[in-house]
Structures are given as structure tokens and as C-alpha cells.
């Protein structure tokens, strides 16, 4: 095949492709998917795969639905927000005293789950030299609550407002005195243990503040006063306040607090690379196997066909499961690709053989042989180019199979536990009982993503098939 011929056929192909609506949709979807996979580090953060299987997600809320559900529900849930030092007002009072103000606009029916303060960096080594911190909350109704008084802080201090005992006691006492609710001692102990600190902090002061707090909307100011013995002993440049939300980001979080959106984006990489690698490898192997079988003929053909039939008569998934179990559930991605290729080439080889058998008997092959062409030349110059169109459409059509089988294996816990894959996400969802708890944001998106990859390749494959194998068009 000369270069001009190639150009010509590429032009013809593009011309015909324009009339395949499905193919164009498939192509556009594929371009989107590939760019998502390529730009994953920029869309989310580049350290997601590294952090995925480790427990680095503690600051995120668990099982939080996506933030946009607020548009569809009457009850507004506080989203996840992170305040860095730039978002706060810092006043230096001199003499080692600093006042940090965090302004939080509460317009939600359900306040944040927790507020986590961390990132104090002190150089004080002596316990008595450690800076002291006092936190005061100024509420929109004019009330002020001292949440914490003169707490000594060190570099590894992490303060969780909702569960901190001192804060809990202070909030409880404040709520009791300001609302004037009468409680008997037994009730008091029970309430103190069970109360939701955040709901009281962000609730209206009335008789029902303990039983069913009504949200108080408006501007809340957290005033954090830090007193250190010396100006240099505290560095607040990494200080953050995490308002742990009842909702999180674009796609919510799972039971470990992992960002599902990040998982979806990064999963595209694994899914596409596994799918394409399996499809290309198995189709190439299948074509070579089939053509070799047809070209050599005789006992070699018989032998190769017996083996092909043997592979064809095996149920794929049970055997794959057994092989996966043999690797003890730590099958890395390369192994998964090889396992899928092991069974993927069989069908292609059958069709390629029958196609090659037809081509082999045609007169132009005979002519080539009469002119003294060797086996290699006949196979690669005359037979292969005729089979390649079929091979290309088969590659596209094999991708969905590979993607789904990979997801199925991961779903059974036989995938690569360190990789971010959609099947793995669904496996975690199944184990955490996501379906019976109604965590739809965890169950639906990964499956839709799998279906989307499948659909785009099916559309592309069918369009290629129609263009490259015109015999099928009558159907």
C-alpha cells in the first residue's frame, strides 16, 4: 500500500464517517473521555491515586451527598468549606496577642457537622511557654459563647468543635442558662451525651433548643484569641478551619470521606487504558492467530483450531475469578490486562481465520505467489490489509467487554486495591451497604461512567463496521 493510497482511503473514510450520526456522537464522547483522563491531575489534584487507598480523608465528611442537592430539596444542607488564613481577618494586638476572626454566613437549615481547627505551628518547647487560645462565638442574635478558654496549643493540636469536651460543656451550660429550660439531673446527663453541639450553636434560643433546635440564620463570627509569650513562637500561615459539611463538592463523599468526583475523574484513566490495551492486544493476537491458522493450513490449522475451540468452550468469568483468587485479590492492572487478553482473542481468531481462508483462495494471491512472493509478503501485504478494517471495528467493539469485565472483577474484590477504578468504588459501595442506605451519589455515577465508556465505543464500533464492512449495510 502506497502513501497516496492511504491518503485516499483516509479521505474516503472521513467522507463516509460524516454520515454516521452515531459514530460522530461516539467520537465526541470518546474525545471528552480521553481529555478527562489526560487532564485528571488538573481537574482534581494530582495526588488522588496516591491518597485513594490510604486513610488521608479524615477531614472530609463521610457519606455526604453532593452540594447541588440543595437546589432540589427544601432543606438546605451546609456544604463543605475550608477557610485558610487568607479567608480570615487577623489582627495583631502586639505583645504576642493575635485575634483571628472567621466570618461564617449560615443560611442553611442544617449547619456544618463539625468545625476542625488545625495547622498551629509553635516553636515553644517548654510547656509553660506554649501559646494559649480562647475561642468566642458571636451569634447573629447578639449572644456570645466562650467555647474554649486558655487552652494550651502545640503544633499537632487539632480541635474538633463538635466533639471537644470543653466546648460541649460550655455550650450546654450556655444553652441551659440562656434558654431557661428546666432539666432534671438524669435528663441532663442524657442530653449532654446525646446533644448535637453544632445544631445548638447554630440554633435559635428557645425552649426547644435541646429537643429540636430551629436554625438561626445570619452572620456568625468565630473570634480566636491567641496569646503567646513571644511574637515568634507561633506561625499561623498554615492555619485552617474546616467547616465539615453535610454536603460535599460535585459528587459527595463515600464512607471513608473520599471525594467521589475525584474518583470518577481518575477512574477514567484506568478504565480507558485497560479497555483499549485489552482490545488492541486481543484483536491483534486474534488476527495473527486466525491468519496464521488459515495460511498454514493442514495439521497446523487443525491444531490451532482445536486449541481455539478449547478456549471457546470455557466460561470466561468463573475462570477469571479463580485466577484472580489465585493472586489473592492483589491483581495489578497489567495482570488484569493479560488475564482479559487471555480470553479476548478467541472470537476474533475464528472470524479472522474464515476471512483469511476466503482471501487466500483469490486469484490475486495466487498471482502474487506465482510472481515469487514469500509467505511474509503475502500475509502482510495482501491478506492483512483486507482484514484490518474488520480488526479496527472489532477493537472498538471489544472495549466495552473489557471495561465491563474489569469492573466486574474489581466489584468482586479481585482488582488492584491501590488503583482508583469504578469497579472498586462500586465494590466499596456494596460493602458499605450504599444501596440500602440510599447513598445514590455513590452508586449511580460510577456505573453511568462505565456505561458511557461502553456506549461511546459501541457507537464508534458500529459506525466503523458500517463503513469498513459494506456487506453489513443491507441489514
Amino acid at each position: 500500500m502506497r502513501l497516496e493510497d492511504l491518503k485516499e482511503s483516509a479521505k474516503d473514510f472521513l467522507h463516509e464517517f460524516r454520515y454516521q450520526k452515531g459514530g460522530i456522537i461516539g467520537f465526541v464522547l470518546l474525545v471528552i473521555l480521553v481529555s478527562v483522563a489526560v487532564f485528571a491531575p488538573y481537574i482534581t489534584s494530582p495526588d488522588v491515586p496516591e491518597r485513594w487507598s490510604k486513610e488521608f480523608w479524615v477531614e472530609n465528611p463521610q457519606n455526604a451527598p453532593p452540594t447541588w442537592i440543595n437546589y432540589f430539596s427544601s432543606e438546605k444542607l451546609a456544604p463543605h468549606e475550608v477557610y485558610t488564613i487568607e479567608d480570615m481577618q487577623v489582627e495583631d494586638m502586639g505583645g504576642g496577642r493575635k485575634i483571628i476572626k472567621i466570618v461564617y454566613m449560615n443560611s442553611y437549615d442544617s449547619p456544618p457537622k463539625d468545625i476542625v481547627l488545625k495547622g498551629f505551628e509553635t516553636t515553644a518547647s517548654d510547656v509553660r511557654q506554649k501559646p494559649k487560645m480562647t475561642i468566642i462565638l458571636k451569634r447573629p442574635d447578639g449572644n456570645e459563647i466562650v467555647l474554649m478558654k486558655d487552652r494550651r496549643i502545640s503544633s499537632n493540636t487539632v480541635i474538633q468543635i463538635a466533639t471537644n469536651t470543653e466546648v460541649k460543656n460550655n455550650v450546654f451550660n450556655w444553652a441551659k442558662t440562656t434558654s431557661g429550660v428546666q432539666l432534671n439531673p438524669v435528663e441532663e446527663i442524657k442530653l449532654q451525651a446525646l446533644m448535637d453541639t453544632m445544631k445548638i450553636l447554630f440554633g435559635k434560643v428557645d425552649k426547644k433548643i435541646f429537643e429540636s433546635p430551629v436554625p438561626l440564620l445570619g452572620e456568625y463570627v468565630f473570634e480566636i484569641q491567641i496569646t503567646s509569650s513571644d511574637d515568634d513562637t507561633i506561625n499561623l500561615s498554615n492555619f485552617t478551619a474546616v467547616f465539615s459539611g453535610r454536603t460535599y463538592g460535585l459528587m459527595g463523599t463515600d464512607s471513608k470521606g473520599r471525594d467521589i468526583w475525584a474518583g470518577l475523574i481518575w477512574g477514567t484513566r484506568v478504565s480507558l487504558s485497560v479497555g483499549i490495551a485489552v482490545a488492541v492486544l486481543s484483536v491483534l493476537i486474534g488476527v495473527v492467530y486466525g491468519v496464521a491458522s488459515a495460511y498454514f493450513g493442514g495439521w497446523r490449522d487443525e491444531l490451532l483450531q482445536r486449541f481455539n475451540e478449547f478456549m471457546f468452550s470455557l466460561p470466561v468469568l468463573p475462570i477469571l475469578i479463580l485466577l484472580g483468587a489465585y493472586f489473592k485479590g492483589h491483581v495489578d492492572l497489567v495482570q488484569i490486562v493479560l488475564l482479559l487478553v487471555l480470553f479476548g482473542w478467541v472470537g476474533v481468531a475464528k472470524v479472522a481465520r474464515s476471512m483469511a481462508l476466503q482471501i487466500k483462495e483469490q486469484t490475486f494471491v495466487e498471482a502474487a505467489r506465482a510472481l515469487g512472493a514469500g509467505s511474509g509478503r503475502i500475509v502482510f501485504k495482501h491478506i492483512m490489509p483486507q482484514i484490518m478494517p474488520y480488526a479496527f471495528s472489532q477493537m472498538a467493539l471489544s472495549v466495552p467487554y473489557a471495561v465491563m469485565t474489569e469492573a466486574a472483577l474489581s466489584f468482586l474484590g479481585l482488582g488492584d486495591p491501590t488503583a482508583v477504578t469504578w469497579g472498586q468504588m462500586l465494590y466499596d459501595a456494596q460493602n458499605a451497604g450504599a444501596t440500602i442506605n440510599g447513598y445514590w451519589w455513590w452508586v449511580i455515577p460510577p456505573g453511568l461512567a462505565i456505561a458511557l465508556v461502553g456506549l461511546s465505543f459501541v457507537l464508534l464500533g458500529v459506525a466503523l463496521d458500517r463503513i469498513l464492512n459494506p456487506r453489513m449495510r443491507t441489514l
Partner: protein
Amino acid sequence: MSFAKYLGIRIFNALLVLIFVTFVVSILFVKVAEDDAKTRIAEIINNEARNPSLIRLKANDPEAFEKWKRNRMEQLKREFELDKTFWERVISKTKNTLLLDFGNARSPVFGEIKVSKIIEKAIPRTVLLFTTAQIIITFIGLILGIKAAQKAGKAVDKLLSVLAMLTASLPMWWVGMVFILIFAFQLGLFPASSLPDPNLEGFAYYRDLIWRMLLPLATVVFVSFGGWAYTTRNIMITTMHEDFITVARAKGVPENRVIYGHALRAASPPIVTNVIIGLLGSLGGAIITEAVFNWPGMGRLYWVALQQSEVNLLMGVTYVTVALFLASMIIADVIYGYLDPRVRVGR
């Protein structure tokens, strides 16, 4: 070659495949089981060493304790057959598996400890679910496929192709999860777990069983009927282009008779084979779908075996699935041969 001879060769081939697969799988199995047995022996000895009399022995006479430990280790090794060579174990495992003796599970599943008994309980349930599903799919598929073939190129036909493509890209088990989410959690219409209540008896038991079967059944049908209808359509269109259909129409046979009497009869061999192959395919997808629904069939067993690393159980279910798969291939062949006499001679 007579049909009986042809069938004989097919069965012989299938048996060879089965024996070979069992042998290869046994090699893997023995390797896994060896590590498994070693850890279990260590566990058993550690447990027994906590016995007060043995602790006393250890304190008074460490040598005697070591001797007891060695003896016990030898005894356990014999029990777990670790004293035999690797290939001896592989051969005996292959033989036992072929004779359906899979050994015991470590903890009871479905109230049974013997793997063969567990599988015996699971198979009818899988067959019940997927045969019912396949019957429904076949009917819906035939009706839709014939309709689409009659109106090839029209709106109905195009809609069917789109539907087939869409549902073919959905993983069946994921659709199951979504169905649970919608129908069990959100609407509360069906139970999330399809495990039947064992306390019920008689009529009430069957009613409970059917009620719990509906959701998995709906899942399988929903995912498969589009693709199946599309296949039927393609087979029907090919048949409708043949000369005998034109002849039938030309001599004035009513259109319904042409379709159901002439075309469908001629198209039946590939349709029937496809139904059987569909059943085989569902065995694969079924593994995970059953696990999602807690349907206590073969798929559930795979899930249990993998989650609790029950090696014997995994070996048993794999063997039975492969054997069933091979058997169904032969049955498909026989039925094809019955419906289309041309294939009976040679091939």
C-alpha cells in the same frame, strides 16, 4: 457420520476439556490450599497450646512440650495431606473434583457444611431465576424483534436499535444496585435482600419467594431484552429476504401466516441457539447480579467464597459452572441439529 456418532464425539470432546480444565485448576488450587493449610495448622497448634496442662508442661519440661508440638504438627500435616508430594495432591484433587467430592467448607453456608450439598441447594435457585428471566426475555424479544423486522428502517426499528445499544452498555449488576436503590430504598416496594425467609412453609413460602424474586428478575429482563430483540430482528430480516417468503406472499398466503408460519419456522434454529447461548451468557453476568441481590444461588456462593476465602467452595462452584456450561453447549448443538437437519451430516 451419523448424528449419534457426532454427538458422541462432542460429548467426548467436552469431557476432555472438563478433565483438562479441572487438572489446571487443581494445580492452582493445591498451591493456594497449601499456604492456607499451613496457616491453619499454626492456628490450631497455638490454640491447643493454651490448654492449662500444656502450659504447665511447657514450664516444667520444655523438651517434652517441643516433642508434643512436633508430633501434633506431623499429625495435622497428615490430616491436611501436606505429607504427600505436590503432584500426588494435584492428581487426587483432580480425581475428587471430577467425582464431585469437593470437601467441606470452613463455616456452613445455607445451613450445610459439605460443598457438594451447598451447591446442590444453590443450583435450582439459579436455574429458577435465570430460566424464568430467559423465558420472559425470549417472549418480549420475539414480539419486539418481529415488529421491528416488519417495519425495518421505521421509527420502531430505530428506537429498538438505540435501546439495544444503550442497555448493552449497562453492567447488569450495577442496574441491580440502582433498582435496589429506587424500588427497595426510595419506594420501599420490594425487599433489598432476596434471601427467602426459611421459617415460612407451603404456600406462604412460595409467595415470599416470588415476591423476592421480582426485583432480580426485572433487572435481568431490563438489561437483556433490548439486545435480544435486536438479534431476533436481524435473524428475521435475513430470513424475510429469502425466496420462499416471496413465493409464499406471491401465492397469497396471509401476512401473519407468512411471518409466523414460514419465516419464524425457518429462523428458529439460530433463534433457539441464541436463547441457549443467552442462558449461558447470563451464567456469567449472573454471578455478580445474584451477589448484589443476596439471591442464594451460585453467584452468591462465588461472593461468599471470595469474601471468606473458602477455597474448597470456590473450587466446587467453578467446576460445576464449567461443567454446566459445557453441557449446555452440547444441548444447544443437539437442538440445532434437530431443528435444522442440514447440520447433522458432517460439518
